[in-house]
C-alpha cells in the first residue's frame, strides 16, 4: 500500500551575530532526511586581503609616479620638495584615502549606490565619479597603446628611434628628422603622425588603432570576471614594475654620468619652499597620484569583508605610493644624468671638431678639457677666422642640460627612449622599460574600469537582463570605439585636452563634496560608529581632525586656486608640433575646442546639483517604520543582496522516502538590533540580519524527530514543524537564547 505523501512547510529564521561570517548554515535533521540550509555571501569578494592591498597599490602606483613626480622634484628644488610632499601626504593623502576605503567597505556598493546610501540627495556624486572615470578610461588606454607600439618596435636589431630614416635619394636624412631629433621624429611622425594643429584631422593611424584594440582586449580579459579575475592579475601588475625599477636602478646608477643627475636631484634648493606654487603642486600631486574621487577605491573596498582592517591598509598603500615616487625619481634622475652628460660631451665634441676643421689643427691638439683655453687662444691669434665661426660655437653646459625638465608623455616616450638608445644592449632595456610602463598603466586601468562596472553591476535592472561578462564587454567596447578618435592625426591634441581638463578640477570638487558630506551631512559620529562596527575601535583624533577640518580646507583652497588659474590664464593654449621647425609651438585652442573643454568640466561638475534636484522632486514621503534606524540605512537591502540561500536535502542511506526539494532563494531579509550577552558576559548590541525562507517537503506518515544544529555564530530561532498554513513562531525568550560572538 502506498504511503500518503504530505507536504509541509518548514519556516526558519537564520540570523547571525557573528563578526566575520561569510556563510550561515543551518542543519535540520529529520528521521531519514537531513536538510541543510546554507546562506552564502552573494557579492563576490577578494580571495584574501592581500589581493585588495595589491589591487590598491597597482591602481595608485601608475604613470604619474614615473613621469610627473620627478619633474616636480626638479622644478621645485630637488630634495627639498620632499618636505611639502610628505606633509601633504599626512594632511590630505592618507585621511582621504582611508575615508574612501571606509565608505566602500561599509556600504558594499559602487560609488553611485554608496553615496545614495549616505544621503539620497548625493547620488549625483557617484554619477560624477563614474563620468570622470569614463573620461579617464577613454584617454588613459591610449597611453597603453603607445607603450605597446614602442614595445613591439623594440624587437628590431636597430631601434627605429635610434637613427633617422634616409631620404629618397639616400644623400642624407629626412629633413624633419634633421631639425628635430630621431626620437622626437619617431614619436611625432611615426607613432602619432601628428598634424600641425588641432583643426587638421586626418585618418586613423592603423598601427595605433590596432594597439588600442589590443589594450582594450587585455583590459577586458583582466576584468571579465570582476574581482575574481582582477584579483589574480594584480599579483603580477603590482609587483613586476618594482622588479623592473630595481633592475633599472642598478643599470641607471652604473651609467656614465648618472651620478651628475642624482646629485642634482638631491641637492635641495630650499628657497623653492617659499614659492607657493611648490606647495600647491605638492598637494595636487598627492591628490591625483592616489587616485581619489574616481570611485575606484570605493569599488575595490566594496568587495571586502565587513571587518577588513582598511585603516592599516590605507596607510600602507599611501606610503608605498609615495616611496615608489621617490624611488622612480632616483631612477629617472640617473637616466637624466646619463643623457645630460652624453649630450654635454657630444656638444663638446662638436665644438672640438669645428675648431679642428676650421683651423686645420691635428687631432691630438684639442681635447675635451682644454677646449676653452683653445677657444680663447684662437680668438686672439686668428680673430677673423674665429669671427666667421663664432656663431656656431655653442655654450656647452652640463647644468643647462640637466635643467631641461620634461614631464608627461614627452619624458616617458622621448627622453627615456633617447637615453635607452645610447645604452649598450638597448633592445633589452627598451623591452623592459616599456613592459614596466605597460604594467603601471594597466594596473591603473583596472581600477578605472572597476570604478565604472561596479556601480553598473549594482543597478538591478542591468544585472538581471545581462550577465556581468556582457556588461563589462559592452563598457570596454564603447570605450574602444570612442577611443579611436585619439588615434587620428590630431588625436594627440584631443588627448592633451582630456589629460589637462577632464579629471582635474572635477576631482577636486568631487572629493571636497565627499569629505563635507561624510563629515557634516552623514555625520562624523555616525561615521565613527560605522568604523567601530567594522574595525572594533573608533578612529583616533588624527583622523577626525583631518577629515573634519584640514582636508576640506586644503581641498577648497586648491579648488579656488585652480579656478583662479583658469580665469587668469586667458585663452587656453596647447603645444602643436611644427614639422618644419622640428619643435612644438604654442597655439590657442579654436572656439569649438574651448567649448569642448567647458563641456568636459561642466558635465562632471553638474551631475551633483542636477541629481540632487532630481531626487528632491522625486522624493516620496518617508514611511514610518518600527526600526527607525534601519530605514535610514537603506543598506539593509544589502543583506538581501549579500546572501544567497541554498537548500540541500539529503536522504539518509536506509530510508526510502520520497523527497523532492524546492530550492529557492530567500526573499525576505530584514535587520534588527539584537541585545544580549556575549561570550565574555558583557552586554552587547549589534545590528543583525534576519532572513526567512521556506522549503516544501513531502512526509510519510511516520514519526520523525527533529533536531537542529547551527554553525558557531549563527543562532536559529527555531524551526517550525508546522502543518501548512500556520505562522512562524515568535522569537524565543531571551533567557533561552544562547549565542556566541566570534572574536
Amino acid at each position, binding site marked *: 500500500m502506498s504511503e500518503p505523501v504530505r507536504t509541509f512547510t518548514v519556516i526558519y529564521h537564520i540570523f547571525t551575530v557573528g563578526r566575520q561570517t561569510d556563510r550561515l548554515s543551518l542543519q535540520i535533521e529529520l528521521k531519514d532526511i537531513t536538510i541543510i540550509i546554507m546562506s552564502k555571501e552573494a557579492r563576490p569578494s577578494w580571495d584574501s586581503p592581500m589581493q585588495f592591498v595589491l589591487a590598491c597599490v597597482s591602481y595608485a602606483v601608475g604613470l604619474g609616479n614615473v613621469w610627473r613626480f620627478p619633474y616636480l622634484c626638479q622644478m621645485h628644488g630637488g630634495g627639498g620638495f620632499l618636505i611639502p610632499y610628505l606633509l601633504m601626504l599626512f594632511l590630505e593623502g592618507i585621511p582621504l584615502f582611508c575615508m574612501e576605503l571606509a565608505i566602500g567597505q561599509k556600504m558594499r556598493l559602487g560609488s553611485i549606490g554608496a553615496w545614495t546610501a549616505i544621503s539620497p540627495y548625493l547620488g549625483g556624486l557617484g554619477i560624477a565619479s563614474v563620468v570622470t572615470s569614463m573620461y579617464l578610461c577613454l584617454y588613459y588606454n591610449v597611453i597603453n597603446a603607445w607603450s605597446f607600439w614602442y614595445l613591439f618596435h623594440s624587437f628590431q636589431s636597430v631601434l627605429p628611434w635610434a637613427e633617422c630614416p634616409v631620404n629618397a635619394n639616400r644623400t642624407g636624412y629626412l629633413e624633419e628628422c634633421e631639425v628635430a631629433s630621431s626620437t622626437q621624429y619617431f614619436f611625432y611622425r611615426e607613432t602619432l603622425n601628428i598634424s600641425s594643429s588641432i583643426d587638421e584631422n586626418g585618418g586613423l593611424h592603423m598601427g595605433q588603432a590596432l594597439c588600442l584594440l589590443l589594450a582594450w582586449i587585455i583590459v577586458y580579459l583582466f576584468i571579465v570576471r570582476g574581482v575574481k579575475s582582477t584579483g589574480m592579475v594584480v599579483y603580477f601588475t603590482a609587483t613586476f614594475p618594482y622588479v623592473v625599477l630595481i633592475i633599472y636602478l642598478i643599470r641607471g646608477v652604473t651609467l656614465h654620468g648618472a651620478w651628475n643627475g642624482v646629485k642634482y636631484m638631491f641637492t635641495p634648493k630650499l628657497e623653492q619652499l617659499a614659492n607657493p606654487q611648490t606647495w600647491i603642486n605638492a598637494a595636487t600631486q598627492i591628490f591625483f597620484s592616489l587616485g581619489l574621487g574616481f570611485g575606484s577605491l570605493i569599488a575595490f573596498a566594496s568587495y571586502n569583508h565587513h571587518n577588513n582592517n582598511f585603516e592599516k591598509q590605507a596607510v600602507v598603500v599611501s606610503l608605498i605610493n609615495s616611496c615608489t615616487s621617490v624611488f622612480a625619481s632616483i631612477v629617472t634622475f640617473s637616466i637624466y644624468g646619463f643623457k645630460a652628460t652624453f649630450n654635454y660631451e657630444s656638444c663638446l665634441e662638436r665644438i672640438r671638431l669645428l675648431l679642428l676643421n676650421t683651423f686645420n689643427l691635428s687631432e691630438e691638439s684639442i681635447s675635451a678639457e682644454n677646449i676653452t683655453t683653445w677657444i680663447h687662444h684662437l680668438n686672439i691669434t686668428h680673430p677673423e677666422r674665429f669671427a666667421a665661426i663664432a656663431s656656431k660655437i655653442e655654450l656647452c653646459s652640463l647644468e643647462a642640460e640637466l635643467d631641461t625638465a620634461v614631464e608627461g608623455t614627452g619624458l616617458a616616450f622621448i627622453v627615456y627612449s633617447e637615453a635607452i638608445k645610447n645604452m649598450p644592449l638597448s633592445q633589452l632595456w627598451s623591452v623592459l622599460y616599456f613592459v614596466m610602463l605597460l604594467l603601471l598603466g594597466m594596473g591603473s586601468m583596472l581600477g578605472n574600469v572597476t570604478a565604472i562596472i561596479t556601480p553598473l553591476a549594482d543597478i538591478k535592472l542591468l544585472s538581471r537582463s545581462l550577465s556581468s561578462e556582457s556588461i563589462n564587454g559592452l563598457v570596454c567596447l564603447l570605450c574602444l570605439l570612442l577611443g579611436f578618435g585619439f588615434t587620428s592625426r590630431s588625436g594627440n591634441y584631443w588627448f592633451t585636452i582630456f589629460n589637462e581638463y577632464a579629471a582635474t578640477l572635477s576631482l577636486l570638487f568631487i572629493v571636497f563634496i565627499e569629505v563635507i558630506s561624510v563629515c557634516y551631512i552623514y555625520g562624523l559620529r555616525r561615521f565613527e560608529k560605522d568604523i567601530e562596527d567594522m574595525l572594533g575601535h573608533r578612529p583616533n583624533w588624527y583622523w577626525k581632525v583631518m577629515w573634519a577640518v584640514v582636508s576640506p580646507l586644503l581641498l577648497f583652497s586648491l579648488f579656488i586656486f585652480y579656478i583662479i588659474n583658469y580665469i587668469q590664464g586667458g585663452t587656453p593654449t596647447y603645444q602643436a608640433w611644427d614639422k618644419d621647425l622640428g619643435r612644438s609651438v604654442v597655439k590657442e585652442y579654436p572656439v569649438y575646442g574651448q567649448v569642448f573643454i567647458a563641456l568636459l568640466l561642466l558635465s562632471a561638475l553638474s551631475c551633483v546639483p542636477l541629481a540632487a534636484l532630481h531626487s528632491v522632486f522625486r522624493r516620496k514621503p518617508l514611511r514610518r517604520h518600527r526600526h527607525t534606524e534601519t530605514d535610514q540605512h537603506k543598506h539593509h537591502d544589502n543583506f538581501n543582496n549579500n546572501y544567497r540561500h541554498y537548500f540541500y536535502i539529503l*536522504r539518509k542511506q536506509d530510508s526510502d522516502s520520497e523527497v523532492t526539494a524546492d530550492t529557492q532563494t530567500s526573499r525576505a531579509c530584514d535587520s534588527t538590533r539584537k541585545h544580549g550577552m556575549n561570550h565574555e558576559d558583557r552586554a552587547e548590541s549589534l545590528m543583525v540580519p534576519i532572513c526567512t525562507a521556506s522549503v516544501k517537503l513531502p*512526509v510519510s506518515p511516520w514519526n520523525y524527530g527533529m533536531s*537542529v544544529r547551527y554553525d558557531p555564530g549563527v543562532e536559529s530561532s527555531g524551526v517550525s514543524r508546522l502543518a501548512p498554513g500556520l505562522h512562524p513562531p515568535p522569537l524565543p525568550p531571551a533567557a533561552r537564547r544562547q549565542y556566541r560572538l566570534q572574536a
Partner: protein
Amino acid sequence: MLAGVLLLIFLPPLVAKDLCKDSQDGFKVRLSIKTALGDEAYEWNESEMFLFRSTLAYAMRKQSNQDTYNITNILVCNDTQRVSFVFVVTSPNDPDQLIPKEQVERAVRQNKHRINNAFLLSDMTLEFMGIPPTLATPITYDTEPWLIVFGVVIGAVAVGIVALLMSTVSRKRRAKEKAAGLSEVDEGIVKENGTTLSSLGRKEGVYNQAFSNDDRFTEL
C-alpha cells in the same frame, strides 16, 4: 744650362702644384683617424698618402673603365696637420688637363665603400667636402617585425578570452543541469548520519538546547 735643367726638373711638380692649388675641379678631403680608431690609430705619412692616391686611381679606373689611370694622375696639395688636403685628377692622356668635378664625384661615390675600407674609416671620418655620402639603404621587410610580435600577443590574448568565456558558459550550463535534477549528492557532500555540517563548515555545530526539546514529534 744648369738653371735650365733645374727648371726642367722642377717645372712639372710646380705646374702640378699650380694645377692642384688653383683648380676648381679639386676636392678637399679630411680624415679623422684618431676619432675613428682611438688607440689603434695609424700615423699619417707618405705611405698612407700613396695608398690614398692609388685608391683614387683605382676608383677612376673603375668608373671610366679605362686601365690607363695611374698614381701620377692624382695630384695632392695643401697638406695640413689636421690631415686634410686637396686633390685633383689629371687625365691619363694629357697631364695638363683635369678631369671634371662631376666625373670625379661619381667615381668617388661609386667606390666610397672600398675607399673607406682601405683606411678602416667610415663616411663620417673620411670626408670628401662637397660629395654627400650615400647612406645605407634602409632595410625593407616583407612583414614589419612589430606586426609579428603584435600578432603573437593578440593571438594569445584572444585564446585566453575565448577560454575564459567557454569556461563561464560551461559552468552556467552545469549549474542549470544541477538545478533541474534531484540534488541528492551536491558538490561532494557526503551522506552521513548527521555529520554533514562539519564537512561544510570549519567547526562542529553546537546543539541549540533551547529548541531541541520542543515538541519533537509533529502531529500529522
